[in-house]
């Protein structure tokens, strides 16, 4: 009865310390663990499995061996990639150079349009709508002395 209880306590202790026990070789285990593992095949298997798993994970992190010519291949690939990017950029370069001219032309068009909108109503006046005095001032009809006198006498001068 007492022996079973001791075994159960030992099994629990082994499980609790599994990470630390797995990291140590069998010869470096503490005495209590060695004693328990000698009598408990289940715990012995658990510790061995944990040690194997840990050892295998450690195998994945060895010193890397860089294959011959690797650096040159990476460099060449990087140069190729940056040339591709430059090529794509050059495709748009003429358009980019014309951009200021295009902007200036657009601005001129806008200004002209604006001017036309402002001068539109004045330009649309027809000569017939002007009074005789306005036609003289604006030079629509050549000044005739008799007509000028008539206009002045009529009080129609602007």
């Amino acid at each position, binding site marked *: 009865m007492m022996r079973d209880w001791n075994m159960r306590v030992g099994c629990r202790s082994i499980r609790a310390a599994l990470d630390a026990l797995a990291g140590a070789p069998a010869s470096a285990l503490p005495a209590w663990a060695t004693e328990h593992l000698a009598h408990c095949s289940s715990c012995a298997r658990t510790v061995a*499995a944990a040690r194997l798993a840990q050892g295998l994970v450690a195998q994945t992190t060895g010193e890397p061996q860089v294959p011959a010519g690797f650096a040159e291949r990476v460099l060449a690939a990087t140069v190729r990639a940056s040339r591709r990017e430059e090529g794509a950029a050059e495709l748009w370069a003429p358009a980019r150079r014309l951009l200021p001219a295009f902007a200036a032309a657009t601005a001129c068009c806008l200004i002209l349009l604006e001017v036309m909108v402002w001068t539109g109503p004045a330009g649309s006046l027809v000569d017939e709508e002007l009074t005789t005095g306005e036609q003289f001032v604006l030079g629509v009809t050549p000044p005739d002395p008799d007509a000028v006198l008539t206009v002045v006498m009529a009080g129609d001068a602007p």
Partner: protein
Amino acid sequence: MVGGFLRNQADIEDVAQDVFMKAYAAMPGFRTTAPFAPWIVQIAVRTTYDRLRQRGRNRSREVGWEDLPGTEQLAASQLATHGHTEEQAAARDLADRLLASLSPKDRMALILADGLGYSAAEVGKALGVSALAVRLRLHRARQKARQVAGQLVGGIPDDA
């Protein structure tokens, strides 16, 4: 590092080249005041993860003791007993079999933490998850790895 996650030499070279090219392309966005190592590790981990995920469908099945070549059996029994082995290449193959039973993220978390000694926070940063999620993932990954290793240990003869 990439060599730790992948076994096939062509895959390793491919991914390593991708990592360098991605790092070169991302260099303008790198803050010079920030440490370089975590930045490049993050690129390496994410590039490798993409490759592992692509290969995920072809995950190899778990193997029993009888399926292992003699050198891998020897490496397994030496590692289980002494914690080290002279059969490095066989042990590396065996490690690949063991890790193939894990999901890509579990596998990467296990290698970064238990293989390379990164903290949970560092692993989390590299994988893009929280430190707590890494601890949970590590617990699950260790259990699974021990379970697979336990199947192998069951086959080790007593006199090994």
